């Protein structure tokens, strides 16, 4: 009510004023006057626009809209034309159609000409026209309010060339991120993350946690945009760090004007995306398998004598199978996890100072009991102009992450291992309600008695100053801090096997990453007639410091006490430090002619402490050129072309050793014996070990046509990497088992296509439909490797092949009459053998862990405030190996062991009787023809192709004006992640999204997530 009154007062005042003007001018005419009244609002979000200039076309009357966007203006006729102008919005002419009251005028935010859109690039900004490299910009809206802990996973399917893989469903875990393939054998392979100009450590930082991610310390809601730089022209300026691409994150800044407050709240649930095919067998099903197994078994006279199901059953029961217990380990281990997220931010400022401040809380439980994640974030970004020349800026984010993780893979603590391995006739509790002592690694003890706590505290930010000497020369200096402190605690209860006998053990691990970067930059920008030059000359120094402290103590005085002060026996006291430094100089120069032709030249000189003195300095450079065809005069008549640009870039960048001291030779200490300190060979020196060299070539085409309704980008890229550092196996007689050499070479090449189409353009809330599509092909080839070929684990690395080409024994199915497993004797796949040790190990032609192509397909529909968008992610042509397959497909050889559960796939596809054309062999109790723990073969190699409905969002923008809500805007939405996944291989029991090497590792599965949310904005 008060508001309305104020409105009325204001309108009256305006009216009075305008009348006053007329009176003063003495121009009251006899002609009838009309007054047009209405509101002017943003066409995008319906928010009122204040300060809009309104004029009558052909007349002299003008006015401005008030704070609620209301206006009133006298018009000569009720058919007059009103002209609305406002900074940042397209000029709008509005023809009165007789109506004079309750007009609503929509103003379209000004679309900057597509090629004038600013793009963040290293140490500055460029426009879409001037950039000569391949860059993709992701707006903050695509990252905010997602149920994912890190922005990285929201990039999946949205950036051509960028692969993001979640190999675990552990909330807060670091995803695997690779840009344009794999460039290194043992060096860094992840992109460089730069936040507000400062390189940031984005990896696991904790000492005990199964997985942690310093990148999750950035609240996605604070991100303005992300630029992914993919080629040499874009990333060479980061020299030795740029070989794997660069991900530039820019956080939000305030804008001059009214303070804007945004609030959002999300709530949802996570469920295990439990395919029917991975459902554990129950006791009846297992008994059925084992009865067959006992009948089939003749490993000793007792078993040989058993031929009937009754006798077999009796034998099993006598040997420990309890038919009366049927534990569903799914109930014991899994849960429906809760998810919630709350964010609030305020931004604003005036022409001298602007600010952005935010706070956020994010919480997500895993789909397994006991694991979860939460995060608290705060951010303050400030810019201040002291005068025309001098300005200051500061950005700081403070974050506290908290994780509950348990060790993965084959450890007894891994709940997923328990889930897929524990037999159902064991119960986690015995009849007295005590933990069942028959289970060595009881998941209930992990849940209830042990402790796995990780806290990560982060401060990420920078302070800087800029001084403009002249209109063409500016200095900028910046000091950045990238600070991560992890605090891990683990407790093994006296009930847990590892804590037994020592009366409980507690562990406190701390890691402190204290990284800093300082840079000094001079910017030069000038025009000489048709020629323009911009240049950036800079110097940078960075240091990474890691300190780790580990302590363990045992023998606790009482239960429910956890700090080590409650123990009597110190067990481990240990600390270590490591440091790495990098010093750099760089120059980036861009020339243009009439802003049609651009040439970009970049050079960088880097020195790193990770290499020996003779080779530690290296130079990197790049050249990029672009031609903005649409700015040519001959294009003037082709109106339908809004943008057409060709670009090409080539250059070099380097890659460092992942290890800080990987080039040194030394004795490692801590090789102790009988309590005495000792040392032994740790590493043999590779004195001339030097930078890996990456040479990316990119040829691209960007276009936008038909009023920007169809736009797209084509890129063809190839990256040659050489001097790859290889952790080459050496004879163990050297005292080490491997050593770093610059031996390898690789080539990654492919095509990236992205298309955006505005299929149906909805005006003023009518039906609107957009489609975005992107696809990336990826080819990886080894061009050099020591001896031309290496066998490493289950891969063969050879010249001409890709890095993740599988090599193992070939499973040949089942002998129809006997039900025995068969393997191929050699790669010709002609002869088979029933003896595993006679089977040949050979390259599995065409089966690699690398995808042939992947991409995303997004459709967004909107209608009257409703919006529905769906992202489909696809990944095709890769293979996935399950190294735990021999355990879960034991074919009865594991007998009645606690971890002898067989997979549902065995149950469905086993051989039962002569003539069966089965996938898997017969069950033999205690057999050793198949099912041994180390019988790795293609039996466990699956086609990893899948299509996933990854992100579905239905949202509704509330008509805040109509509902008279006290908000500038408000929307509610429902979001579902990973709703449906289609997997090509019928035999693959688990989710196909595993790490880059294509090896499944009994990690927590990716969850299906459902969430409801609300966003509100005040102005």
């Amino acid at each position, binding site marked *: 009510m008060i508001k309305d009154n104020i409105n009325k007062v204001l309108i009256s005042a305006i009216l009075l004023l305008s009348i006053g003007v007329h009176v003063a001018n003495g121009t009251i005419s006899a002609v009838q006057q009309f007054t047009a009244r209405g509101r002017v609002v943003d066409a995008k979000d319906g928010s009122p626009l204040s300060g809009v200039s309104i004029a009558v076309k052909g007349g002299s009357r003008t006015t401005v809209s008030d704070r609620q966007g209301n206006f009133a203006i006298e018009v000569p006729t009720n058919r007059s034309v009103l002209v609305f102008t406002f900074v940042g919005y397209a000029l709008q002419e509005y023809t009165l159609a007789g109506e004079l009251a309750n007009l609503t005028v929509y103003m379209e935010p000004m679309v900057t000409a597509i090629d004038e859109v600013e793009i963040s690039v290293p140490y500055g900004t460029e426009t879409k026209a001037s950039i000569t490299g391949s860059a993709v910009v992701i707006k903050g809206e695509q990252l905010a309010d997602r149920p994912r802990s890190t922005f990285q996973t929201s990039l999946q399917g949205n950036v051509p060339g960028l692969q993001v893989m979640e190999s675990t469903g552990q909330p807060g875990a670091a995803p695997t991120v690779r840009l344009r393939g794999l460039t290194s054998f043992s060096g860094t392979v992840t992109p460089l993350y730069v936040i507000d100009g400062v390189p940031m450590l984005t990896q696991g930082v904790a000492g005990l946690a199964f997985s942690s991610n310093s990148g999750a310390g950035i609240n996605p809601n604070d991100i303005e945009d992300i630029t992914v730089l993919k080629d040499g022209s874009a990333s060479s300026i980061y020299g030795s760090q740029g070989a794997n691409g660069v991900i530039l994150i820019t956080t939000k800044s305030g804008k001059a004007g009214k303070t804007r407050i945004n609030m959002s709240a999300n709530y949802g649930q996570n469920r295990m995306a439990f395919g029917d095919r991975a459902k554990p067998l129950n006791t009846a099903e297992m008994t059925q398998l084992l009865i067959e197994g006992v009948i089939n078994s003749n490993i000793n006279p007792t078993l040989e004598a058993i031929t009937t199901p009754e006798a077999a059953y009796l034998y099993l029961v006598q040997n420990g199978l309890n038919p009366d217990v049927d534990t569903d380990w799914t109930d014991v281990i899994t849960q429906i996890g809760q998810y919630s997220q709350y964010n609030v931010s305020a931004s604003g400022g005036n022409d001298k100072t602007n600010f952005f401040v935010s706070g956020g809380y994010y919480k997500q439980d895993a789909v397994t009991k006991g694991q979860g994640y939460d995060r608290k974030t705060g951010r303050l970004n400030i810019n201040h102009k002291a005068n025309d020349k001098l300005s200051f800026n500061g950005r700081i984010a403070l974050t506290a992450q908290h994780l509950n993780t348990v060790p993965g893979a084959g450890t007894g603590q891994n709940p997923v291992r328990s889930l897929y391995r524990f037999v159902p006739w064991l119960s986690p509790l015995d009849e007295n309600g005590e933990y069942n002592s028959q289970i060595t690694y009881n998941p209930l003890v992990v849940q209830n008695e042990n402790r796995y706590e990780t806290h990560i505290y982060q401060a990420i930010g920078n302070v800087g100053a800029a001084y403009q000497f002249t209109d063409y020369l500016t200095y900028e200096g910046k000091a950045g801090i990238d600070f991560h402190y992890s605090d891990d605690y683990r407790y093994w209860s006296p009930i847990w096997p590892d804590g037994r006998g020592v009366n409980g053990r507690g562990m406190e691990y701390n890691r402190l990453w204290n990284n800093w970067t300082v840079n000094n930059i001079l910017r030069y920008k000038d025009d000489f007639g048709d020629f323009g030059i911009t240049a950036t000359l800079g110097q940078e120094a960075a240091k990474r410091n890691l300190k780790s402290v580990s302590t363990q103590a045992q023998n606790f005085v009482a239960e429910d006490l956890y700090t080590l002060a409650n123990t009597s026996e110190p067990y481990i006291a240990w600390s270590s430090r490591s440091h790495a430094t990098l010093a750099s100089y760089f120059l980036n120069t861009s020339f243009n002619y009439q802003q049609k032709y651009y040439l970009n030249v970049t050079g960088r000189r880097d020195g790193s402490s990770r290499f020996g003195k003779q080779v530690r300095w290296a130079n990197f450079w790049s050249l990029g050129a672009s031609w903005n065809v649409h700015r040519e005069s001959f294009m003037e008549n082709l109106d339908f072309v809004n943008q057409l640009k060709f670009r090409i870039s080539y250059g070099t960048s380097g890659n460092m050793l992942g290890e800080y001291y990987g080039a040194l030779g030394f004795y490692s200490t801590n090789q102790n014996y009988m309590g005495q300190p000792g040392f032994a060979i740790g590493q043999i020196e590779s004195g001339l070990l030097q930078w890996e060299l990456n040479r990316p070539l990119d040829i691209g085409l960007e276009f936008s046509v038909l009023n920007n309704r169809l736009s797209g980008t084509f890129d063809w890229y190839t990256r040659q990497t050489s001097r790859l550092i290889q952790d080459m196996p050496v004879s*163990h007689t050297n005292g080490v088992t491997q050593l770093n050499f610059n031996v390898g070479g690789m080539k990654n090449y492919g095509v990236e296509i992205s298309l955006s189409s505005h299929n149906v353009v909805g005006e003023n809330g009518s039906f609107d439909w957009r489609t975005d599509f992107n696809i990336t092909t990826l080819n990886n080839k080894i061009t050099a490797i020591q001896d031309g070929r290496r066998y*490493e684990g289950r891969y063969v690395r050879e010249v001409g092949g890709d890095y993740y080409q599988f090599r193992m024994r070939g499973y040949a199915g089942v002998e129809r009459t006997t039900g025995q497993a068969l393997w191929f004797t050699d790669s010709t796949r002609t002869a088979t053998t029933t003896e595993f040790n006679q089977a040949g190990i050979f390259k599995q032609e065409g089966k690699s862990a690398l995808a042939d192509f992947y991409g995303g397909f997004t459709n967004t529909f909107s209608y009257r405030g409703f919006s529905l968008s769906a992202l489909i992610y696809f990944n095709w042509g890769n293979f996935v190996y399950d190294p735990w397959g021999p355990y879960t497909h034991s074919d009865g050889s594991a007998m009645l062991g606690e971890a002898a559960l067989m997979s549902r796939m065995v149950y469905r596809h086993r051989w039962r009787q002569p003539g069966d054309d089965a996938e898997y062999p017969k069950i033999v109790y205690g057999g050793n023809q198949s099912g041994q723990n180390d019988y790795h073969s293609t039996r466990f190699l699956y086609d990893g192709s899948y299509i996933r409905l990854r992100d579905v969002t239905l949202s509704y923008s509330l008509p805040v004006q109509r509902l008279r809500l006290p908000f500038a805007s408000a929307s509610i939405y429902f979001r579902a992640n990973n709703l449906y996944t289609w997997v090509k291989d019928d035999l693959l029991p688990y989710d196909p999204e595993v790490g880059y090497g294509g090896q499944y590792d009994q990690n927590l599965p990716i969850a299906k997530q459902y969430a409801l949310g609300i966003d509100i904005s005040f102005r």
Partner: protein
Amino acid sequence: MVKLRRLAGMFLMVSALCSGCSEGFLDETNPQSVGFDHIKDLKSLTAATTGVYNSFNNSNYYGRTFVVSPELFGDNSFISIRNGGRYLGHDRFTVTNGDGYVTGAWTQMNRVVANANLAIQAGNQLTFPEGQRAAANQIMGELYACRALAWFDMVRYFAQPYNYTEDASHLGIPLVTEPPGVIISPSRGTVAEAYTHIVADLLRAEELLGSAKKNGYFNKAGAQALLAKVYLYMEDWENAEIYATKVIEESAGYTLLSNADYVASWGQKFSVESILEIGMLPTDNNGANSIGYLSEQGGYGEWLATKELYDTYSQTDIRRNLIVPGSRENAESEAYFIKKYPLGASSRDDNIKVLRLSEVYLIRAEARAELSKTQPDKAAGALSDLNAIVGRADPEASVSGLQGDALVERIILERRKELAFEGNRLFDINRKKMSLVHIQTNQIRTFEYPNNRFIMPIPYAERNANPNIQPNPGWN
């Protein structure tokens, strides 16, 4: 041009202000290491030697694998049907060249040699002050003895026994005696060459080592006892007898445990008859990978004794108490628990007894019994040595009236009973050319001598890295 000059000037000014421009900024060394030139005095030489011993207590060497594996091949022990997948290839006679335990043992044995080579070379270039000379000799002697032990273990595990061919000319092990200075890919020498090196090192060690007991480390008696065992494997019976005698009769401080103390000694460290024992501390990190954790029911408890072994002990044999009959939950209803590593469920720091005086008696008994085939007067000594062990374990028992092969066989049986679960069985079977009776819960199989599978494959990891290393026949 003026602009450019100003620009350059300003940049220089800024650069001068910057941190980290000096070359020293880029010099970083690993704070958890010392350089290869670090061995400069007795203290650093001692630390290097400590680093050599460190490999012995690795869980893939004496810490577990090298003790358990030779006992799984054969009739002494097996892995329970309820197990965590450890050592199944060994238990089931299906080891592959990718076996992690075998690979780990290979790595650690070679690590001993490589580290000992560096330390020996450095040590030989040092001169020690008079007051340190005895201590320095002791350390140098230990280095030679450690290297010999690693070679001996390697040649036992990865090569056929000395007597496999007439002149031991079959494939042995790579023999690297000096730090190579470059990365090497050596081929394998013959078994004869390996034994020549082992004997030479041990003779040198015998010269250098002091006689004082040094718990957890080699002393003179340790080198002599090992030498006796080496000669025994070489079937050099005379020298085996001589060296066993040196230990039994000339070394002070070693006596056989009494019947009363015997069982308890397995829960203790460094008994009166322990000549070489690998020391374990709870902090040595073997933890759940410790040997006792594998056998104790409070741990994995999956390493079980065979009933057949249990039945070889008489009711009154004190050693029978080191196998406890019981029932393993959800697995063998009738199980025999190994109790030689009783700390496995608590502090998990059972020491590993590598050489005991009891074995030295049995070495001499066997040497004398073999000699008695041509020198009948040796038989009495053989019997008396054998009875020292038999009678200690069971005061009511003694052996008499046996001679020739029967006596040797009886001694080998006594080795089985006395040294059960200590990592000797496979080697005794192979060097005595016996067929191997492989006992598991559910099946008994017999493998005939000679057999390619009585020795381990050269690990895939080595074959992959070293083109010169020859695989063992019958293995890929």
